[in-house]
């Protein structure tokens, strides 16, 4: 009985989420069919669903999906390594932190995607441009959340480490790092979203590469159901990233 209740409690959130999504889609379908939403702006969900097979077969979606996901993943790996590294550095050196933190925060709200011509000049019309713009644009949240996580480590945990005579390296790896992990992961997730948006955005703007280019091409052809289907694949990339980061976080901190 307890097991059944636990299973029900575990399944309830995803079931509720999916049901809400399905209901929202049905509502949009009804509103479009009733003429409340212009079907030349938003196609019928059934038309979008029907276009999936065509887009997959004719537009090399798998290849484009892998290219966009790969670019965003490369940016993600870079921003995790560099972002956490810089966050640790700024946490460790107070003067550096006081000097730079405001600039990093300002960078977080700057529309860096508009600097794509500069990146094109430096890195050329290549996947490297997408990776670098995704990386640079997504770096601030990782740095800021790393600093927040490390600075938020409870004083008593640090004192426990000191009382056991931990070295600086042990203090970091055994206490500060695991204590800051949840905050770091929030930063990484935000960073991956920023990176994906910028990668797809630049692909769209320069009509080059993966899903962003596909969305551009389908929109140019005025193939709205196909455009929305392609957007669904971008969402799928994001879902995959969330699932993977969630899995890594649970592996690193099973208690949470």
């Amino acid at each position: 009985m307890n097991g059944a209740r636990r299973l029900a409690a575990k399944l309830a959130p995803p079931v509720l989420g999916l049901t809400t999504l399905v209901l929202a889609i049905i509502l949009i379908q009804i509103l479009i069919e009733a003429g409340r939403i212009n079907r030349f702006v938003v196609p019928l969900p059934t038309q979008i669903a029907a276009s999936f097979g065509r887009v997959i077969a004719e537009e090399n979606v798998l290849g484009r999906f892998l290219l966009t996901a790969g670019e965003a993943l490369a940016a993600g790996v870079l921003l995790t390594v560099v972002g956490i590294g810089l966050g640790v550095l700024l946490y460790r050196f107070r003067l550096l932190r006081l000097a730079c933190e405001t600039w990093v925060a300002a960078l977080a709200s700057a529309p860096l995607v508009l600097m794509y011509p500069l990146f094109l000049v430096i890195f050329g019309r290549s996947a490297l441009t997408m990776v670098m713009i995704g990386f640079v644009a997504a770096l601030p949240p990782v740095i800021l959340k790393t600093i927040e996580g490390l600075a938020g480590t409870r004083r008593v945990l640090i004192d426990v480490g000191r009382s056991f005579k931990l070295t600086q390296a042990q203090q970091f790896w055994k206490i500060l790092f695991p204590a800051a992990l949840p905050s770091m992961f929030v930063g990484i997730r935000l960073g991956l979203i920023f990176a994906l948006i910028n990668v797809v955005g630049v692909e769209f703007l320069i009509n080059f590469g993966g899903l962003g280019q596909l969305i551009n091409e389908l929109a140019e052809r005025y193939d709205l159901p196909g455009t929305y289907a392609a957007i669904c694949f971008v969402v799928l990339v994001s879902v995959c990233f969330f699932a993977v980061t969630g899995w890594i976080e649970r592996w690193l901190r099973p208690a949470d």
Partner: protein
Amino acid sequence: MKPAGPILVVEDIVKRFDTPDGALTAIDRVSFDVAPGEFLAVIGPSGCGKSTLFNVIGGLIDGYQGRVSVAGETVRGPHAALGMVFQEESTFPWRTVIENVAFPLEIAGVAKAERIERARHFVALVGLAGFERRYPAELSGGMRQRVSMARTLASEPKILLMDEPFAALDEQTRLLLGDKVLQIQQELKQTTLLITHNITEAVQLSDRILVMTYRPGRVKRVVSIDLPRPRTSEIVSSDAFGHYVAQIWSDLREEATRGMQDAEAHSRRERATP
């Protein structure tokens, strides 16, 4: 046979802090010693510098006058012979009970199988056998404090320093955990220094009680507790226990009143400041 000398000696400790209102003397010429296997409690009102004294002895703060020595060796910074149990909940939330308790052994480089085996002993000692695989979030406050205590005991310190470890717990749990502490002390013959503001707890557990004055913290009186051992929490209903509690309260009352008046005056000054 010559009696063993003190294992912990605290000599003329003075600690001052700089505050916006000028230098504040937290503790002033505090001296005492602790014999091997002895249970000494330091009691005083809030603001008497108990936690400062805990941190000085534990080597967590410096910049003080005087000397702290363990078995003749001067303490400069954290010392392997001193195991600290903190007032605040201090288990590592990302580690299971057994991993928490095995932590000092892991730092000491003990092989995994051996450290788990040894940690299991200390988990059982604090009465948490069966909870080894649980995370702190799955335990009550009292159980988490016992995990902290087991973790400190696992490092096998010569002296156990405890800073109001049960302050956040209710009175009944506190009495029962006191029993557990008495049992552990009996079993390990563990030299213990307990910092507390709870008179009942101090009398229940200690061989001697050092009563401190309100700011600056000085030693006001040392009271020897001549209650039979082994003890349990049942001792709290005895006449002798009541006598000690009354005696210590008569010493503390004046200090606690001074502390309360000082806090009220400070609060009035804060309100008057625009």
